[in-house]
């Protein structure tokens, strides 16, 4: 396998950080977060051209922001199908809808 480029390493690092964040979620909803993570990465892997660096950088920033929101403790579950996070009632009714 050829050595990874900096951008590829950044994507893998984000993927790793997302999966690590999943571990901190409640055991019952953790699989939902993991399948959400896998689905999002798999989806963008198909949707974005490998050489479209501008878009990839944009997606990286978007992913980082999304991770920042979803790793908050108030976010306890995430929808398996549509991908909308379900806010925890105790922490107010924050609405989180990824675009």
């Amino acid at each position, binding site marked *: *396998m050829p050595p*990874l480029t900096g951008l*590829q*390493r950044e994507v*893998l*690092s984000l*993927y*790793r950080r997302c*999966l*690590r964040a999943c*571990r901190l979620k409640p055991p019952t909803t953790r699989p939902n977060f993991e399948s959400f993570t*896998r689905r999002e*990465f*798999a989806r963008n*892997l198909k949707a974005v051209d490998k050489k479209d660096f501008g878009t990839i950088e944009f997606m990286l920033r978007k992913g980082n922001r999304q991770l920042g929101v979803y790793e908050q403790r108030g976010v306890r579950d995430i929808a398996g199908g549509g991908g909308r996070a379900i806010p925890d009632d105790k922490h107010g009714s924050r609405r989180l809808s990824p675009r």
Partner: protein
Amino acid sequence: MDLLKNFDKVQDPSKLSATSHFTNDLGLDSLDTVEVVMAIEEEFSIEIPDKEADAIHSVNQAIEYIMSQPDAH
């Protein structure tokens, strides 16, 4: 390495051996490789830093890394 046997993306389990390369022999992509390394982390209760994790591409390298960690179990 029973862990890998159960990993659903391994295309051809008969190719799995102590020397298998994740990409060349098992047909895993780089995201799958990250998943394998993360699963190893959980299995052995260790944390593998990004730099070292990026260097693990085969069963051999994984075993070497685990062996080099004194607190792996």
